[in-house]
């Protein structure tokens, strides 16, 4: 297939412009010197990047976002790793149902999930906002952790675990000495992916914010409602950079095709 398709090439270029164009515009405007978002930008300065660090709310919500993403990740791992192991290694009644329940947060629209959690966690059970936010993010991260780890486990020969057991290792010992070292890259990829999912989340977080507790993406929304300066563009560029870096790490670890495979 060496034949050249001019039409196809043109079409592909258009798609790329459509997809990436806005990102370039944001990037360009973030370095502008004027006080409103403008394209093409006028002048060149880093003042909007500096401004991010001057707005206190950005810094506090950034901390909340990081804490929630990390703590939530840890909790999701504690639940997700045993769940993924059980789902991929054992046959039991209700396995299919359990699998569906664990994956369902991906299938249910985030807004619905967020609203439901607001209704139950905050209104009915009267949990503190911070706790509710954390629970919401754990639920959000779980499917990613479970899917990626289950996928790693399915590529790992169960006979190797049996070998360890036949040599005298208990199930737990086998898991830590044999299974874990071999699904490490999957584990890290799952953690990074879940981290991103939590870090960038808007639709669940928006219901779980209250006085003093907000996440960075929510703070950005609030900021845009009040100001229209390029600070928001500068933050966006930083977020894109973090996301791209993490995705690059995941790709290097196990290949993104991992997540498109049905498993």
């Amino acid at each position: 297939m060496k034949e050249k398709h001019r039409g196809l090439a043109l079409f592909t270029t258009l798609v790329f412009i459509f997809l990436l164009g806005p990102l370039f515009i944001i990037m360009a405007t973030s370095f502008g010197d004027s006080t409103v978002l403008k394209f093409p930008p006028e002048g060149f300065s880093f003042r909007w990047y500096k401004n991010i660090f001057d707005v206190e709310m950005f810094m506090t919500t950034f901390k909340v976002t990081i804490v929630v993403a990390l703590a939530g990740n840890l909790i999701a791992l504690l639940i997700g790793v045993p769940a993924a192991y059980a789902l991929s290694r054992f046959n039991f009644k209700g396995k299919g149902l359990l699998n569906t329940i664990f994956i369902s947060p991906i299938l249910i629209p985030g807004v619905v999930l967020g609203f439901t959690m607001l209704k139950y966690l905050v209104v009915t059970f009267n949990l503190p906002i911070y706790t509710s936010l954390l629970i919401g993010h754990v639920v959000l991260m779980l499917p990613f952790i479970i899917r990626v780890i289950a996928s790693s486990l399915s590529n790992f020969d169960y006979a190797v675990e049996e070998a360890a057991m036949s040599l005298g290792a208990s199930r737990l010992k086998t898991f830590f000495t044999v299974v874990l070292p071999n699904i490490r890259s999957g584990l890290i990829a799952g953690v990074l992916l879940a981290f991103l999912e939590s870090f960038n989340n808007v639709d669940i977080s928006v219901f779980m914010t209250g006085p003093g507790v907000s996440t960075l993406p929510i703070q950005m929304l609030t900021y845009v409602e009040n100001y229209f300066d390029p600070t928001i563009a500068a933050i966006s560029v930083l977020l894109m950079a973090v996301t791209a870096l993490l995705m690059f790490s995941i790709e290097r670890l196990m290949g993104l095709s991992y997540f498109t495979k049905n498993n």
Partner: protein
Amino acid sequence: MELLSLQNISVAYEKNLILKDFNLHIQEGELISLLGPSGCGKTTTLRLIAGFLEAKDGKFMFKGKDYTRVPVNKRNFGFVFQSYALFPHMTVYDNVAYGLRLRKVDQSQIAKRVQEMLEVVDLKGFEKRFPGELSGGQRQRVAIARALVIQPDLLLFDEPLSNLDANLRVNMRVEIRRIQKQLGITTVYVSHDQEECFSISDKVAIMNKGIIEQLDAPSTIYKYPTTEFVARFIGFNNFIEYGEMHNDGSVVTLHGAEGTRLEVSHRSGHPLTDSMKGAIRPDDLLVATDSECAEGVGGLTAAELASGLNVINGSVKISTFLGRSYQYVVDTPLGEFTVNREMEQPFDRGTTVKLVLPREKVVLVQSSK
């Protein structure tokens, strides 16, 4: 001395009963093979002994103790897998040392025993390699060393050679037998390769549909299969079914229609039932013309043959050149028979021939329903 016994064991997988009322006794120091077609329950039996599977019913006794509920990691049995199942993140040394570390053996002892074992499997100098850097045969030798170094009370092999190429398979099975004898360790070996099982085992258990059809020394099975299934499995392609059976001690006679008879020399101790069939290999069955029969064939006189003793009339249906010999499929009133004969000029299709069954080459087997 009896080392282990499976008593009335049943194993079910989901709703299918794989083993039902299964019994097996193994003597100390012997190498016993479980041989059979896929789905016969041989791997299930092995995994049950290993402790990977639990019996639904029955008892597993080992060294006089009830092992039925002893978990796999407390059994001290070595297991060698078809897929080698080495720890991919550990070096050869660490793979072999794994079981010893779990047993809290001290470092210097571990180093010594790992070295010894690597010597036994001829892998000295490979300590620092990872499994990914080894060939299939080397990997399987690491797996054997890993299973042996813990000084297991029993060694279990699950089709250990089926991922290796043909030449290596022959070398490895000699190795396995050598190591097994050298260490005198009781071994259960599962394979679907007949030659492999026969060449290394003290005893072979031929399995079919969850039961042991015959358990004997390889040479005994080869010469004297006891059931139709075993006979077919080891290449007795021809079966003769006559009606009435008559036993006068050293000779058993089966009577067919119109005076035809089949006389078989009887082995003492071989149990006879009402539903026996004669079985014979294509190499042992003789095919002859009328004129050859007039001079006597295969230890039977012309008169005996003429009276219908150990002879079947038929016509050549298919003739195949096999190199050393020709193989004929002969159509007879008793069905088709396969027979090999070395000859210069083959019989043409449709030639009328006689099939002669030498008395000592025919084996009586229990017919399978």
